[in-house]
């Protein structure tokens, strides 16, 4: 056969067409098959951007916070370690001057001065921990919840150094023996893993409100920050709220009505 430029171009054109058509044909072929499918739970509570409003006016003393902290720690198998260096907290209380650094002054009113404040992971808009994590064990979900995949945590503690709120704890020892009452519905952690509040992602997924909200008698409200008609937006509109260390630009999603 005599090879001319013309016949070569014809051949090349036809082969290119053939190659281009293959993925299209594949797509048609595969659309007939029924592979396994994965869906979210239908009862799951969803939001574009989850946020929490804590009404501190509804709290008076430390005792008011106990059931909230206990409910969270019980549900998530958080160990009770006596030694301060080993302590693990998902949610705890602290003084105004420690919680709202640079926002306190000498003549603070008595109520705020002596009132403990509930603190937990702030589920930031721009979470420093997520950027610091070398294994992507910590990640931000589309709905704003900053979550941890405990399977992937290597215990480097970069996230703990990065978090400006001290929201994270490290398992210096095996936590199992220190879990008082095991909740079979939730795993424990192992030694060498960081942990923190997960906004009760496992409860939202089955249509339940976070444990702290349920235990708070209405003092804590969670909802969708991007929905103008949501309960949290209503509270934010009608009350003066503050956030922790706003000048850092992390964009915390926990709001406090003072």
């Amino acid at each position: 056969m005599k090879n001319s430029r013309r016949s070569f171009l014809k051949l090349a054109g036809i082969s290119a067409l053939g190659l281009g058509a293959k993925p299209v044909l594949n797509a048609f072929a595969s659309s007939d098959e029924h592979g396994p499918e994965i869906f979210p739970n239908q009862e799951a509570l969803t939001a574009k951007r989850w946020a929490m409003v804590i009404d501190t006016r509804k709290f008076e003393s430390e005792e008011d916070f106990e059931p909230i902290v206990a409910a969270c720690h019980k549900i998530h198998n958080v160990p009770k370690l006596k030694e301060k260096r080993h302590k693990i907290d998902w949610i705890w209380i602290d003084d105004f001057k420690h919680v709202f650094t640079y926002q306190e002054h000498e003549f603070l009113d008595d109520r705020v001065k002596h009132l403990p404040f509930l603190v937990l992971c702030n589920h930031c808009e721009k979470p420093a921990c997520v950027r610091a994590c070398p294994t992507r064990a910590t990640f931000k979900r589309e709905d704003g919840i900053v979550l941890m995949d405990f399977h992937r945590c290597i215990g480097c503690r970069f996230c703990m150094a990065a978090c400006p709120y001290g929201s994270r704890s490290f398992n210096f020892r095996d936590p199992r023996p220190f879990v008082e009452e095991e909740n079979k519905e939730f795993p424990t952690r192992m030694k060498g893993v960081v942990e923190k509040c997960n906004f009760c992602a496992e409860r939202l997924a089955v249509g339940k409100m976070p444990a702290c909200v349920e235990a708070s008698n209405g003092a804590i409200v969670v909802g969708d920050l991007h929905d103008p008609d949501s309960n949290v937006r209503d509270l934010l509109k009608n009350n003066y709220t503050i956030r922790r260390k706003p000048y850092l630009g992390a964009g915390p999603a926990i709001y406090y009505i003072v």
Partner: protein
Amino acid sequence: MNDKNKIITGLIIFIVIITFPFWYNMGKASPVPEPKLTDKAKAAKECVEPKEYMKVEHMQILDIWRDSVVREADRVYINEKGKKFNMSLSTGDDSCMGCHSNKADFCDKCHDYASVRPYCWDCHIEPPKEKK
């Protein structure tokens, strides 16, 4: 080749020592274990996917499920036959361990035989031991 004898004797000794584990254990290989099913698992007849697939690919399924549940919050698995499953290793009666509640006879048997040590149970809480 003045030391022919010495070299050959040395080689023979070397080969005998190197192959010692093989002929010493000849015929003593333990039989492949057969995992035991609970009554609940037997009654269900089929797992999430066919038995052969589960035998070979259960770790891949667990891996996909873990990422999907933790990262995407997608917790419902619908298999090719259209049956729904709650994607969970150890939470609730319709999780993996809800059906296969005999960890020692189901998981450990093969894992011990194959000398694999999955660290699931460092964190996940094992189903309570069956009463006998």
